[in-house]
């Protein structure tokens, strides 16, 4: 139930290093890169976008990109 605000799943640079709060599991799995990874809505491939890049998938030219899900565990009541 406790759902904190969305946390970027990738740690960018050194800015957010050590910013993982309690309940974090399996975080820090991503490399420290200055770029965000997105998921293509058409082919499901990983897409990294650099500054000023065209918002499109390099594999299939799909223009719908999704943000990655949080890597933290989320608890729910089965009700």
């Amino acid at each position, binding site marked *: 139930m406790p759902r904190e605000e969305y946390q970027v799943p990738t740690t960018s640079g050194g800015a957010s290093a050590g910013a993982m709060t309690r309940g974090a599991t*399996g975080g820090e799995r991503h490399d420290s890169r200055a770029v965000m990874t997105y998921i293509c809505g058409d082919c*499901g491939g990983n897409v990294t976008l650099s500054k000023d890049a065209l918002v499109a998938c390099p594999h299939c030219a799909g223009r719908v990109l999704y943000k990655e899900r949080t*890597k933290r*565990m*989320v*608890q*729910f*009541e*089965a*009700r």
Partner: protein
Amino acid sequence: MAPSRHAAPSAEEHLRRNTVGINKETVTNVSSTDFPGHFPGEDHAFSIEQFQSAFSIQFHRNEANDASFSLIGIDASLANAFRRILIAEIPTLAIEDVFIENNTSVIQDEVLAHRLGLIPFNGGREGIHNFLKWYKKPEAGEDPYANSFDWNTVRLELNITCTVNPDAAPTENDPLKAYNHAHVYARDIVFVPTGRQAEHFDGENAIRPVNPDILIAKLRPKQTINLAMHMHKGIGADHSKFSPVATASYRLLPLIHITRPILGADAKKFQKCFPEGVIGLETVTREDVSKPGSGYEGHLGELKAVVKDSMKDTVSREALRHAEFEGKVKLGRRRDHFIFSIESTGQWDSDELFLESVKHLKLKCKKLEQQVINMVQ
């Protein structure tokens, strides 16, 4: 007391009092009247001896997931108490907490958690009924796992990823063949025994879904579900996922009374007004004809309608719609004959559930008795 005060009603009168009348548009005589003071000169005080001698149980069907039996000679208040206890108060084990590490499927986390909660599970009965005890939710601020032990929490895991099936033809259109794990089923849930659970739930006693083919989610390649679950014991009053029965219901025994003969083509039509097997057709015998005033005179050898098995009737009242049967048939239900039907979800056997409901009612009565004793002290 004068002996006349204990005069028992005749069998006919007894049947009349115990029959709920079912007419074309009304239902009559709906409440029971067998309580003290209702009939002058009759004693209707409850006595356990009298209840025992009048009460009986008949089993019609007894399978693990479906039992049907009649409780005869019991008041609606008691029969209904059993039904309500069956639905809301007998504990079962069900998924209560879902810890989702990852879920990239199209089904949302909370919907997925809800679906998982509704899956009925089975396992070693001794372990579920005796070893596993109640779980108490930790207070706010307390360690969330402070009360989780092997005797009140069962851990399950579901880790599944959909991949492309390399052996499938490139033109394959069926997702089940084109991909591996395109469908997530209840059988993909893995039981992780902790502590002494390894003794109570080993081998064929393992905690497992009752129906392994329940579809939980559908996946496409690269989509993944990765979660752990905690099961706790609970009751249906808290959430219906804990209810041990799919249905627990009763109906009153239908009565069909043919007051005047229904003969020939009418008899065939009359038979069609009821479900199959309720009304039989017999030929009018010499004996029937010889009875003066029976209505059979001069109809020797014709077909007549007789009631074969009124229990199969659905009481649709179809017979009451036709003018040719007017005044020839009376429909009703027996007030003290309850045809119970219990369908277990699988964690208990259906007949065992009824015994458990009796146990629960007995316990409630004992508690009430103690309260009454405390009151008069």
